[in-house]
Structure formats: structure tokens, C-alpha cells
């Protein structure tokens, strides 16, 4: 990997801001949280929950990563990255002080305004909790604007759970219910074992007064939507994050086209009403 650890930022393509890595924290065996110093321009550090940036590792490549930090925070940009390929490996191996390139933020956001006055149901699977964390943090910062906060989180195994301390902290808050489940649990795991949809048995939803925000593998999201429909949640109150093949982030290259939409430009957060015709289409 070509580490860029110099005093001066390297030359960058237009619209890309050079930003220094402030730190990298290991979340799980394969997932890391990367914090970047505030970008030079104040506006570049502002984002809405659910938006993503394009992160460029010099000499390796550029990739879309959801912002996972607190939108009310100091302007530092936070990303949780699963190390699964060349570019993500390079990103999580960045050293503090190293330069990376940032474009964005891009895309639509979770419906934090529309959800005011409602219960908010967060359903996350695997690394899908990362793009939802800013929404949770926003709700906690503006607690009086929302009624109950329900978080249902599923992961592969206990060692794959993200933000374990935060989850435990959220669970202790009033009017907040946090249920965590894993697909495979050992004998030391005392939480739930089973897919995330099984957790719906332990929460009481108020249809018409609940906004659902879902992020995870598409198959999981489809089954979560079925559970929500069984419980009478209107389609208009369901939002999901589609993170398909984003490449250019501006709707130009067409890699992420889904029906009439470009996920990077028209999403990644969509109301389910827009996604309904496309979610279970084969070969899309």
C-alpha cells in the first residue's frame, strides 16, 4: 500500500478534499471505525444522517462509505468500514496523520424530520447499523422531538456486533428499547439467537405513529418489510437504505441504476413506496 504521510496534502482531482486521518479503532475482527479530521471547509464536515462520502486512498482506489458519526459532533467525519477488499483494507490500515481524499457528502438522508412526533423503529443487520447510527444519535440529541426509540439489530455472531458499548448505553435510556440478536451464538452469549425478524415478537408497534428505518442485506430488508406489513405499518412510513454498486456518486456512470433511480443520487435512502416495484425483481 502506498502510504501518504506527508506534511502537504497531495494533488487531488477536482471536488476532492484532502483530509488527515485522526484515528482508526477496531470494532470487530474485520470492521474498523475511521475518524478523519474536520475538512478545511466547514461545510464539507456537515452531513445528514444516512449520507455517504467517497473516500479515496491514494494509489489504491475510491469507494463509497456511509458516514457513521454523530451529525451534531465537531465536524470530524466518522466512517465504519468492513475490511473485505483491497481498497477497504488500505483504508482501515491508514495511520493517524495520513492523507485520504474525501468527496461528498452525497445522497438522501433518513427521514428525521418526517419522523418527528412518532416512534422510530430502527432495524439493522450486520454493518447496516453504521449508516443508521447518525440517525440514532440525532434522535438522542433531540429526544423530545420523538416518542419511543426501538432498535432491532441482528448480526452474524456475538463477535460481529458493532458498537456494543453504545448499544448497551442506548438500552438503558428511557423510552428506548434495544434488542440484539445473532445468527450463531455460543454458550457465553446470553442475548437472542435467531434472525432479526424474530425480534418483532418482543416489540409493540403503533401503526400510523411509527417511522421505520431499515438497513441491511436486501433479503433481510424484504423480510423485515413483510413483518412490518403484517403489523399494519403503512408503506409510506417505511424507509430503507439501498447501497448497490455505487461508483461515481453523482448519477453519471450508471453502475448503481435500479429501475428509474440511481442509488447514489436518488438514494441511498428511499421510501419503500419508491422501492416496492424493484426490491424483488430478479436480475436487477
Amino acid at each position, binding site marked *: 500500500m502506498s502510504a501518504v504521510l506527508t506534511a502537504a496534502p497531495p494533488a487531488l482531482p477536482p471536488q476532492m478534499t484532502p483530509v488527515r486521518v485522526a484515528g482508526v479503532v477496531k470494532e470487530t475482527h474485520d470492521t474498523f471505525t475511521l475518524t478523519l479530521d474536520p475538512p478545511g471547509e466547514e461545510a464539507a464536515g456537515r452531513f445528514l444522517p444516512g449520507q455517504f462520502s467517497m473516500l479515496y486512498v491514494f494509489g489504491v482506489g475510491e469507494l463509497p462509505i456511509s458516514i457513521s458519526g454523530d451529525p451534531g459532533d465537531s465536524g470530524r467525519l466518522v466512517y465504519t468500514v468492513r475490511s473485505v477488499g483491497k481498497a477497504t483494507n488500505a483504508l482501515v490500515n491508514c495511520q493517524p496523520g495520513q492523507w485520504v481524499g474525501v468527496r461528498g457528502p452525497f445522497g438522501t438522508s433518513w427521514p428525521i424530520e418526517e419522523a418527528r412526533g412518532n416512534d422510530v423503529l430502527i432495524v439493522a443487520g450486520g454493518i447496516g447499523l453504521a449508516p443508521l447510527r447518525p440517525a440514532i444519535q440525532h434522535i438522542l440529541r433531540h429526544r423530545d422531538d420523538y416518542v419511543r426509540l426501538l432498535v432491532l439489530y441482528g448480526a452474524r455472531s456475538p463477535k460481529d456486533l458493532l458498537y456494543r458499548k453504545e448499544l448497551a448505553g442506548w438500552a438503558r435510556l428511557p423510552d428506548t428499547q434495544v434488542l440484539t440478536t445473532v445468527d450463531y451464538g*455460543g454458550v457465553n452469549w446470553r442475548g*437472542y*439467537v435467531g434472525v432479526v*425478524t424474530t425480534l418483532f*415478537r*418482543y416489540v409493540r408497534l403503533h401503526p400510523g405513529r411509527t417511522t421505520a428505518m431499515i438497513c*441491511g442485506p436486501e*433479503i433481510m430488508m424484504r423480510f423485515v418489510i413483510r413483518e412490518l406489513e403484517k403489523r399494519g405499518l403503512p408503506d409510506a412510513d417505511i424507509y430503507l437504505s439501498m447501497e448497490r454498486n455505487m461508483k461515481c456518486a453523482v448519477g453519471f456512470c450508471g453502475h448503481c441504476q435500479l429501475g428509474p433511480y440511481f442509488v447514489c443520487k436518488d438514494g441511498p435512502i428511499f421510501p419503500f413506496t419508491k422501492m416496492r416495484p424493484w426490491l424483488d425483481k430478479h436480475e436487477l
Partner: protein
Amino acid sequence: MDSKTLTDVLREHPFLEGLKPNHVQKLAEVALEVQFARDQIVFREGDETSLFYLLASGKVALEVSAPGRVVRIQTLGEGDELGWSSLLGNAGKTFQARSLEPVRAIGFDAIRLRQVWEQDPAFGYQFMTRLLKVVAQRLQATRLQLLDLYAPRGTKLV
């Protein structure tokens, strides 16, 4: 179960939601309140028990033993059903059940339940329809679990 009568607890259990009052009453006549301490084995793999439980509170893990380890395959909680295979007359439990926290439940002897249903087949049909839904939900959940949805993209299952 605190100040609630057994019939109240049965009426409020999700498994019995919408059941006719006379059927709930018949269930109450053969029901038994049970409690398990944390980490108590409710039944072991291979046990020949005819008990079926409706969980009122607490958490129970279903486990299977493999050489050198125990795998926890599912967790059940308040409002769930435990030991459904007893109702089919199956001899021998497929999995081990262990309470993860103090559990309160209502137990039914499947042999007695079947006697009740033989006298009132409409009640038996209602009960078995509910049970089939539970079994179908567990089958669907197991299939999703097998998909290993959260594995990194490109990970091959077979």
C-alpha cells in the same frame, strides 16, 4: 404470576389470542404454572417429556451439543412457545432447552391436551392451526439463518 389468574395469563398470551373463552377455560383446567431459575436445564436432548410450554417471562435458549462444544441455535422469550414437538407425540426432544434468566411459564401435558381435543376436535383444530403458524415461522427463520446474510459479499455457502 403476580396477581393475575392463570386464565388471565393464558388469555393475554399471543399464542392464544382470539381463542374462544370456553377453550381458554379448558386449557386453564389442564395448565400448570412453572418457574425455572437462571441456567436451569428445562429439558435435555433425547428426554422423553410430553410437556409443552407457553413462556410468560424470561429467556430460554435451544442448544445442541457437538463434540467439545454447545451451539446455541435459537432463543425464545416472553410470548413464545417451547417444546412444540411434544404436541405431535414425538418421543425424545431434538434439542436441549436452558433458561438464560429466571423464567415463568405455563406448562401443559400434551397427553392430557390430546384427550381434551379428542372430546372437542374444533378446539384441537384451533390449537393446531396456531401451532402450525409457529412451526412455519421457525422454519422460515431457520432458512434465513442458513443464508448467512451478514457474511461478506462474495462468501460462498457451498
